[in-house]
């Protein structure tokens, strides 16, 4: 009874106004409306003024024929493709160089980070020199260095360096034989997919058994046997439905086969070496953050040093390493836009460069390009956060 009266005593209105949650909600709604109105005003006014000044607007240009060639394309593209297609080509090229860069930078970074802590004086100093040098030279200079160092030092196509007349290296790139798949190759493809799935299940089973019984199972050898053996058997059984297309010198340049252009090579090299130096420092600090007592405890248990690193130190260090590693991946992806300087056809060069210029639609093109980098960054962040959560300390 007493409760009821006291509730009725407090008038409903003032209570809502003083409720911090309610007030916060009101202010957030007001703020959102203001921002939205401001954006609306900006966009409308911009469009209006661009029209007044005779500047074309809109996204119709994406359907128009581009009319220019692109050096490297992962999808079908020629001069009669549309500007929308140039966007895709550029985007894929950006993704390619970023993915390669992330892969090699991680590899270099982890190796160098561990070596940096080596007790061997020479190795330790070499790693230190690497890190301090490449972290402190501007990336653009490094890109130019690798690009022109390659360009000026490799022979012309007619004097190519060759391995067995099937692999050629010259100042136009690395030419490799390309696999050409014939009709019956489908079975081999399925066999590859199948054996990958089998290996995943095998690994799971082995871990379960290890956790339950403590018995080790050599997954590595078994997996390799499955991965190589099964597809090879199927490939041979179906009559080897694949041949190689070899590059050949025709006129001034090689034709056929697969080409790795020097721009891709130099850019990947520069990005991985530069970012690798930063990752090495991250890895070093991560490892050092694991208390020395852990290592001592591990060796007291009789674990080999390499096992200690792999099973005790790294898993704990990872939790410290992942957040800064994420920002290095983000940096690398954004830095890949320096590609335009050496003519690698990435999104910025192809779309925010040539396409912007041929169409003159700067506002639209830059808006699209910025959104792409934003989305890429968000995707990387989300993935790394997921990985971080997965690596977090789990209590069993």
């Amino acid at each position, binding site marked *: 009874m007493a409760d009821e009266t006291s509730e009725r005593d407090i008038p409903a209105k003032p209570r809502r106004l003083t409720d911090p949650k309610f007030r916060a909600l009101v202010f957030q709604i007001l703020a959102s409306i203001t921002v939205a109105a401001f954006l609306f005003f900006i966009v409308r006014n911009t469009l209006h003024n661009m029209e007044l000044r005779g500047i074309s607007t809109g996204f119709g240009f994406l359907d128009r024929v581009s009319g220019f060639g692109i050096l490297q394309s992962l999808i079908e593209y020629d001069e009669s493709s549309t500007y929308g297609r140039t966007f895709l080509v550029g985007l894929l090229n950006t993704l390619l160089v970023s993915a390669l860069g992330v892969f090699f930078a991680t590899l270099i970074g982890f190796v160098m980070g561990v070596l940096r802590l080596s007790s061997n004086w020479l190795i330790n100093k070499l790693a230190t020199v690497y890190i301090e040098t490449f972290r402190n030279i501007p990336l653009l200079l490094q890109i130019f260095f690798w690009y022109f160092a390659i360009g000026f030092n490799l022979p012309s196509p007619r004097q190519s360096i060759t391995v067995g007349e099937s692999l050629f290296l010259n100042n136009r790139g690395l030419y490799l034989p390309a696999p050409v798949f014939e009709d019956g190759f489908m079975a081999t493809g399925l066999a590859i997919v199948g054996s990958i799935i089998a290996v995943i299940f095998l690994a799971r089973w082995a871990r379960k058994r290890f956790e339950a019984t403590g018995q080790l199972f050599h997954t590595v050898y078994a997996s390799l046997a499955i991965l190589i053996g099964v597809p090879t058997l199927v490939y041979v059984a179906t009559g080897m439905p694949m041949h190689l297309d070899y590059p050949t010198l025709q006129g001034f340049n090689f034709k056929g086969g697969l080409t790795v252009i020097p721009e891709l090579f130099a850019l990947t090299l520069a990005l991985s070496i530069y970012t690798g130096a930063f990752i090495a420092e991250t890895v070093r600090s991560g490892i050092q953050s694991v208390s020395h007592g852990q290592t001592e405890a591990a060796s007291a248990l009789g674990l080999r040093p390499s096992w200690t690193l792999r099973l005790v130190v790294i898993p704990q260090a990872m939790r410290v390493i992942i957040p800064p590693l994420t920002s290095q991946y983000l940096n690398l992806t954004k830095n890949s836009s320096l590609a335009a300087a050496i003519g690698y056809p990435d999104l910025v060069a192809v779309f925010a460069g040539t396409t912007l210029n041929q169409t003159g639609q700067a506002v639209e093109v830059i808006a699209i390009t*910025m959104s792409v980098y934003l989305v890429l960054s968000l995707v990387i962040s989300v993935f790394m956060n997921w990985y971080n959560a997965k690596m977090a300390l789990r209590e069993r």
Partner: protein
Amino acid sequence: MKILRISVLTAVATAGMALVGSAHAGTTFDAVKKKGFVQCGVSTGLPGFSATDDKGAWKGIDVDACRAVAAALFGDANKVKYTPLNAKERFTALQSGEVDMLPRNTTWTYTRDTSLGLNFAGVNYYDGQGFMVTKKLGVKSAKELSGAQVCIQAGTTTELNLADYFRANKMEYKAITYDSSDETVKAFESGRCDMLTSDQSQLYALRIKLADPSSAIVLPEIISKEPLGPVVRQGDDEWFNLVRWSLFAQLNAEEAGITMKNVDEMMKSADPNVRRILGVEGVKGEFLGVDDKWAYNIIKQVGNYGEMFERNVGQGSALKISRGQNALWNKGGIQYAPPIR
């Protein structure tokens, strides 16, 4: 970072267009007059067109286009400041108001004239696209270039003409596109590509930038029309008129035989055409919003078209380009200006 620069320019342009009202006639003209100098968008360094000499002073026919406007407007050709721009940045820089005029070996095309909010004020050099190859290649004609790898600069008409030419002749090519002309030249020198293509005049200019100019030759073929001229923003007719007639004054002066040297004597000439050009009688400078001696100032300080040509790209320069199409209409060329009357 280049993307940054373009983004910033775009942001400035967008912000400008988002916040201010519409441009009214005369805004650029009045603004330039008020600040006391012309902000001139030029290339980052193309000998003969716009490049700095060993003392750091800008020289070239594109530079002279701005100097002529400054002479007409302020009576002083030195009242110019320069903004070096690569091919990709140039139109955004003009649209955003970073520069007042853009004489930067820029080709007059339909798309640029109609969809960028810009206007071409005239043609100060008739050009066409050509090819430069290394002598080692042993090629005599562009028709032998199928399968070639080509170095070009991004954001130019060159990119499109190249694609057209090779497609029309059913030849294959690979284009390697650089942001700046320095990288384009360096890549060509390093052997990354078989040839470099650009407007032919610019090939001669880039050739003298090579470590060994005699190692490269310019092929005879011309594959396109490249009328190069100064560009201004749309919507200010007073400014457009001033830029356009500054060039026409130089052409009319050459036709009438008025030169830097004899211009003072010519003031006393009895020829009514000469007297009109020099503002002694007849037409008034006020139609352009400038002093009556505007054309006199241009000729006195910058010279007539022919003098300007010979000094920068012709026999008086390292380029040694002959007048060709750029001779006056009555001397076998196509340079032709409407009369001053």
